[in-house]
């Protein structure tokens, strides 16, 4: 029996408890039965390919190669059947971060003048530089959403563990996934209780002090909870070592096909760069 294989098939579906699934892929009525092909690919493989893609794209400088990389990411997003609206929202939020850098680059990088605005001239080199950054970051971001965003965070944690990433890092990640919602609930409870007593955020010492108390209390409660969790773990015989239930899944035909495709696509990108 292979629990890992079955778990990767199970966890991607929203659980009937009514909680929204954290996965990004669409679960429209007509699509429920056909799972996106990418879902079936081993999560370790997806993680490695995503990492490889990011490394390759960071190294690209030629515009055609970068455009091809973005197209490739777009293709992967389609194959993963990402929800269009949610994906766009994430991309826009992400691009918002870099907006200023991108706007100022053409005016600050010296080079051949293309146009001028209020006496400040924009250079061709600067424009190309900004376009390169925009394409590069969006290609990587879209690929991450396509390959990793369709995974439950738990599955990502397991993939990291099985790729022999440091155990401490993996456990930190998994504990965060497990408890962030519990802490979030605690925060919202406290916040609602404050509101119920007429608290409104203003710019005065009372607000600063109260918000300080709120976060202080959250910290104290988190530490207490951490202690109780450790106590519960000790009650079940925990002595500092985690034992894993997961077995290593061997690559199947789909995994080989995905690997082949990724290598070819990566090769094509690099070829475009040096062509």
């Amino acid at each position: 029996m292979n629990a890992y294989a079955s778990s990767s098939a199970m966890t991607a579906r929203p659980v009937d408890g009514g909680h929204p699934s954290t996965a990004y892929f669409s679960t429209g009525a007509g699509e429920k039965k056909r799972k996106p092909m990418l879902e079936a690919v081993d999560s370790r493989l997806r993680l490695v390919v995503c990492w490889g893609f990011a490394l390759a794209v960071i190294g690209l400088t030629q515009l055609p190669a970068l455009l091809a990389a973005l197209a490739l990411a777009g293709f992967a997003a389609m194959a993963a059947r990402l929800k269009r609206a949610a994906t766009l929202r994430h991309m826009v939020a992400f691009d918002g971060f870099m907006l200023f850098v991108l706007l100022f680059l053409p005016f600050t990088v010296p080079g051949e003048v293309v146009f001028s605005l209020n006496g400040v001239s924009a250079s061709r080199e600067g424009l190309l530089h900004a376009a390169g950054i925009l394409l590069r970051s969006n290609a990587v971001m879209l690929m991450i959403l396509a390959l990793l965003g369709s995974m439950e965070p738990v599955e990502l944690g397991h993939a990291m563990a099985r790729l022999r990433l440091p155990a401490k890092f993996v456990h930190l990640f998994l504990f965060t996934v497990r408890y962030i919602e519990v802490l979030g609930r605690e925060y919202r409870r406290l916040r609602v209780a404050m509101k119920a007593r007429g608290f409104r955020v203003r710019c005065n010492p009372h607000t600063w002090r109260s918000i300080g108390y709120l976060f202080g209390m959250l910290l104290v409660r988190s530490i207490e909870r951490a202690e109780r969790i450790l106590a519960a773990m000790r009650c079940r015989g925990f002595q500092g070592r985690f034992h894993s239930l997961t077995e290593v899944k061997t690559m199947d035909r789909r995994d080989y096909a995905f690997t082949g495709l990724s290598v070819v696509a990566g090769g094509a990108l690099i070829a475009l760069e040096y062509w």
Partner: protein
Amino acid sequence: MSEPLFHLSGIHFAYDPEQPVLAGVHFTLHAGERVALTGPNGAGKTTLFYLMVGLLKAQAGWVEAFGRRRIHEKDFVDVRPRAGLLFQDPDDQLFCPTVIEDVAFGPLNLGKSMAETRIIVRHTLAGLGLEGFENRITHQLSGGQRRLVSLATVLAMNPEVLLLDEPANALDAEMRERLITILDGLPQAMMVISHDEDFLTRIARRRVCLAQGRLMEY
């Protein structure tokens, strides 16, 4: 009578020296007994459970468990799997991402093989009517399901004693009935903390009350 599972004598404990929580608690638990532990809020009921499994150390008095006097941390290591403590908040107990990993955590710590553990997990979940829950994500379960899964994580170690800290807390009527049926069918000796009179009447045969640092039989 056979040797008691637990024998506490003259237990003293205080978080704050000014206000002792337990001041000379005597208590004996025999196999097959089901004891209701009642008492006002802050009387030290949970503290007593913690002392019994060595999560806290008594400042005076003795804890004897399974025929041996237990003093140091290492004495309690083998007490804990044999006296399964069900925590008040399932979120404290369930820390693994998926149900199967959480239920397997105890047996794996006890050195069971992966194959044995899988069988234990399957049987334990089936015994609680939780078939097919293996790959569910723990934090996405409902409150009642969480409670049953945390009971499963304790039962998976095959304990001789169950220490249940407000097991019926925050359960709806249906889930409460289901829990009563399950607990009633278990062979283990039990101590149950609860403020639910009806629940206690249906589960426990013997009653003790903790008040002003003393344990009284009634």
